[in-house]
Every structure is written in C-alpha cells, then in structure tokens.
C-alpha cells in the first residue's frame, strides 16, 4: 500500500510523467485527412531527423516554417499567407538546389580598413528557391516598400522558371513532370532570416493543409 502511494507521489511529482509527445499540437485527432497527412510527414521527417543535419518543415496547417534538427524545432518563422498549385504534388522530401545568392565582400590582404561583414540584412526579401524533385518555392515580403517594382521583378522570376519548365518539357524525350509550386508571403525580416538559414542541399518536407 505504502509502495503504491510512493509510486503515485513520484508520478505526480515528476514533470511530464505520462505526457505523450505530440509532433503536431494543432492536429485534430478525429480528422482523417489531417491524421493521414501528419503520419505521412512524420514518416518523412523520421528519416531526416535520424541523420546529423538541419532540415526545413513547411507546416502549411500551422502557417509556420520550422528549421529542425533531430526532430527539435530550432527556429520558427511564421507564414503570413501562402498559396500553392495542386497540393498533391507537394509530397516527399525535396532538396534545395542553391541558397539565394548574396554579394560577399572580398578582403584585401594587408588593407588597413576591415571589410564589412555580411549579415542577415544583406539577404534578399523576395526570391525563388528551386528544389529537386521539382518544386518551386517563391518567397515574397508582405510589406513591400517599392511594391510595383518588386512585383514586376518577381513576376519576371516566376515567369522565367515557368518558361524553363516549359522548354524542358518541350525538348524532353520522355514526359517531364511539371514542377509543383508554393508561394509564401513572409515579413521582410522573416524572408531574410529564412534566406540566411538555408544551406545548399537542405531537405524540405511540407505538411499540407486541408484549409485550401
């Protein structure tokens, strides 16, 4: 009896005792679609988290981008709004082909003046990321200072990517899968922060949403 009481006391005193880990706290456990999607993402994520690397989880359900490692959320970037092509294509693990370019300052040997370092403020706020298998991820800032010009530049970038896809399909011997696309609107700071944290070859997995 006393032993049982001690065990009960221990259970109550230990923080998190019996607390089930939950990968997606926002998940509705009675929604079949949400459960299917969450288990699919977890299966993909387990493979990524088993290796020493950082990866991205774009959680469209929770409107957040998570930089993760070993299953831990290292940093979270909120998504203001998003839109996508057919979500069916946003499955699987995609790998980033190249991080957004940044102009690096060159050190002149023996120069008296130190070169200005690059910082997150040097990163672009609107850019298109390409992944393999084909996925085109467009990031746009939610508040654009020079809205029209930025929109025109971005439209040009997206158009260029679409044209490349079209040319590849036209000249390919076998039918090429059209690339899936996702467009994220982030604040300018968050867009720069994401660009900064990206690494060539970084894996991304997307949790799709049933909202759209």
């Amino acid at each position: 009896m006393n032993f049982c009481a001690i065990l009960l006391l221990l259970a109550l005193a230990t923080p998190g005792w019996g607390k089930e880990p939950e990968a997606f706290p926002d998940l509705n456990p009675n929604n079949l679609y949400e459960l299917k999607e969450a288990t699919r993402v977890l299966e993909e994520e387990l493979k990524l988290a088993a290796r020493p690397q950082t990866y991205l989880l774009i959680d469209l359900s929770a409107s957040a981008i998570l930089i993760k490692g070993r299953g831990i959320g290292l940093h979270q970037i909120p998504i203001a709004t998003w839109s996508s092509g057919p979500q069916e294509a946003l499955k699987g693990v995609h790998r980033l082909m190249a991080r957004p370019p940044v102009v690096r300052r060159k050190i002149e040997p023996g120069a008296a003046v130190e070169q200005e370092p690059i910082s997150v403020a040097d990163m672009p706020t609107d850019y298109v990321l390409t992944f393999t298998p084909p996925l085109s991820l467009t990031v746009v800032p939610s508040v654009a200072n020079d809205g029209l010009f930025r929109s025109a530049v971005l439209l040009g970038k997206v158009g260029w990517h679409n044209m490349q896809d079209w040319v590849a399909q036209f000249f390919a011997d076998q039918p090429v899968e059209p690339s899936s696309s996702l467009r994220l609107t982030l604040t300018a700071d968050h867009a720069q922060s994401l660009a900064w944290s990206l690494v060539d070859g970084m894996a991304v997995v997307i949790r799709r949403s049933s909202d759209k």
Partner: protein
Amino acid sequence: MGRILLAAFAVILILLLAMYAPTTTSPTSGTSHEIHPTPVEDKASLRTLQARYKTLSKQLAQLTPNQPYILVDTARNRLYVKRQDEIVLDAIASTGSGTILDKPGEGNNQWVFDTPRGEFLVKSKLTNPTWIKPDWAFVEEGLAVPQNAVDRAEQGVLGDYALGFGKGYFIHGTLYTRLLGKNVTHGCIRLNDNDLKGVYKLARVGTPIMIF
C-alpha cells in the same frame, strides 16, 4: 448492318473515353480519386491512424538528445545551451563574417569565412588553448605564411577554454568583446569569458551542436 456498326462504334468510343479520361485530383485533399470508405471503415482507419501517429510522434521524440545540446543562431549571433525545451544558458556570440579572401597562387580558389551550418559534435575540450594560426591569418595581414609550425602559435587570444567541433572550428573566447553580437569571425564562434566557462562546464565531448 448499319445499326450493328453504329453500336460497335459507340462501344469503342465509350471504351476510348474510359481509357483516356483525365483523373482529377483535388488541390485540397489529394484524395478525391480514392473510394470513400463506409463509416465503419472510417472509424477503424481513424483508430489505426491515431495509433500510428502516436507511435511516430514517440519515435521522433526519441531522436531528441537526452543530454544538453548547444544551439547557435548565426543570424542573431546567439548561443544557447538547452536541455530538452529548457534554456540552460543564453549567450551573445560572434559568428562568421561571410567575407571572402583569395588563396594566393590558387586561381579562383577562395576562403569563405562562414560559420558552418548543420549538426556537429563537440570533439575536443581544451583549457588555455594556443591558437595555431592557419594560412589565411597570415595572408589576410599581407604576411608570408611561415614554414615553421612554432611561428604559427599564438597564446592568449582564444580565452581560457576552447571547444573544437571539427575542421578547425572552435567555440572560444575573445579579446574583442565589443564585437559580440556581430558577424565578424572567420567561422569560429566567440563568447565572453563567463559564457565560455559556462558552456565548457555544461558540454562534454560528444555534446551535439546545432547551428543554423
């Protein structure tokens, strides 16, 4: 005869239509081509999925380090020591400047002074470390690279401790504490004396370091 031909033509037409009819997929659920299960099947698959989701969530949680780990945010120049979700130590750091320096006599080869991103392990713990100056330290100052290893040794610039995480990268102290919080290093992570001592005490060889 005409009627038979007409009937045959109609059958062929129906068959062709059935073969080449496009399969429609919903952009939202991605499951519209599946047969909808009956409510009984629905409940059973819901229970199976709920169990699977719990198992996968547990498996992912098991990949999280049990011991304290070091987290470095290179965008904001912060270093944390965390145990599960708890922040044990929060420090202002200096990380890589992102600048470049030409390697003399090697054409287009350059040193890129970034702090590497990803997952690493503490590989060594040193007290009163001596800095063995690499080639770039001399090239940057416009000096000739010494042939003698003794000429590369410099005492007292790395602080009281250094934690190596591979390829010549260290978490170490600094003489330039006013530059903490900025991207100014050649890839190493600098801390002030107190924080460095804290990290040295908390970390062991094998402690994970997550850098993003």
